[in-house]
């Protein structure tokens, strides 16, 4: 069974159709990069997968849950689907440790001692064990983003979504975040990432999906796709470099 199954999804903002029938199937352990210009619908598609955006037609199944508007079922889905945002979105009034332990404690009733152990484990995974008691404001952007990844990992997700997670970072800080993501990918995590890091997409993602005008314009094994674009749109996009 695929970890993520997207079938003919349509989405409009008012009269503007931003997703015009998107279908995609992701196997467990697969890493999918979604690339494309701004406005191609790639972030919208990603946000549909954990219900942050609704869609008008089509079907999405993720980690054995069918996407629904029912709040209770949606929460069950979200326990299995992590998302990391461009702007980190840590909770500024909570320490790093509290950021990570909050949801496991209150949505999954993980006992305090276990939540603490879990938080330390995921912080070690992203290389920030010493920041447990820091507040997000005292961390660099790259560190904040790694905490955001750790916070997602603490939910033990089956699928992780990354929405342009390095776009807000200074170039010298993107590396530390990409390394963490690459480790996750090698560890077998199912990942979908919207990214402008073409090099990362080519080397880490099994499959790259190029979106254009609300559709999947072209997709295939990353290395082949970048080496031999089949459409002029992708060819231009690759030539123009990251954008």
């Amino acid at each position, binding site marked *: 069974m695929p970890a993520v199954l997207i079938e003919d999804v349509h989405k409009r903002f008012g009269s503007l159709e931003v997703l015009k029938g998107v279908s995609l199937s992701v196997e467990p352990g697969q890493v999918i990069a979604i690339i494309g210009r701004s406005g191609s619908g790639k972030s919208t598609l990603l946000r549909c997968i*954990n219900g*942050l955006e609704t869609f008008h037609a089509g079907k999405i199944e993720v980690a054995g849950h069918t996407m629904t508007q029912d*709040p209770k079922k949606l*929460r*069950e889905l*979200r*326990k299995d*689907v*992590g*998302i990391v*945002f461009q*702007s980190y*979105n*840590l*909770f*500024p*009034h*909570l320490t790093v440790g509290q950021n990570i332990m*909050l*949801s496991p404690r*209150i*949505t999954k009733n993980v006992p305090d001692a276990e939540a603490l152990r879990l938080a330390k484990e995921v912080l070690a995974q992203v290389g920030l064990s010493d920041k447990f008691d820091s*507040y*997000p*404001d005292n961390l660099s952007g790259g560190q904040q983003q790694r905490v955001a990844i750790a*916070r997602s990992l603490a*939910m033990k997700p089956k699928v992780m979504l990354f929405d342009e997670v390095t776009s807000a970072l200074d170039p010298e800080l993107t590396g530390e975040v990409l390394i963490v993501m690459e480790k996750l990918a090698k560890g077998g995590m199912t990942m979908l990432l919207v990214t402008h890091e073409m090099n990362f997409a080519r080397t880490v993602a099994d499959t790259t999906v190029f979106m254009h005008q609300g559709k999947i314009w072209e997709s295939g094994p990353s290395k082949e796709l970048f080496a031999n674009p089949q459409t002029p749109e992708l060819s231009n996009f690759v030539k123009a470099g990251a954008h």
Partner: protein
Amino acid sequence: MQTFGWPEALFILRSAGWTLALTAIAFFIGSILGGILAIMRLSRSKWLRRFASGYILVIQSIPVLMVLFMSYYGLSALGIELPPFLAASASLSIYVSAYLAEIWRGSIESVPRQQWEASASLALTTAQQYRYIILPQAVRISLPPTVGFLVQLVKNTSIVQVVGFVDLMRAGMLVNNATYQAFQIFTLVGAIYFAICFPLSRLSRHLEKVMNASRSH
């Protein structure tokens, strides 16, 4: 003729106690109502939103004095006699609730939308989002304007004299009617208002600075 001396000054000081008591009661009850109204204003239910907006619109569009007249003279014309203290507390509470509701709604709305998204993505319920993520941040944002409003409230309680309640202002006027030593009396009354409001104003400004210095913790 009576002269202005210690007994009169003590009478004025005691009445300042009533001004404080009235402020405290109106602020306490108004906070509870205002908190509920703020959440209603942001509720997903259209009817709750409409009810709360309507209430706030009406109360903010009429003078507090009107509410006071209605709850004292208006109700008594209908045969319901409220004692002045009760009518005054109730009217001021209603007034406070409408204004705090708006201050707090604004504070809740100024918590970035991404905080809602991040907490929703972590499977929190709406109640959990409010409790653990949104309200702790909104409270910080709301502290300076809330304390600022409290200063206004202390001064606005002086309207309750129209229903015969003796607050600080009314006490000053009574003593003046008996002694005609207006300058001394109103200097004292003014000094007492100042002694109450000045520290609060300073607190409000201090909180604003602290909030600006660190937007978070």
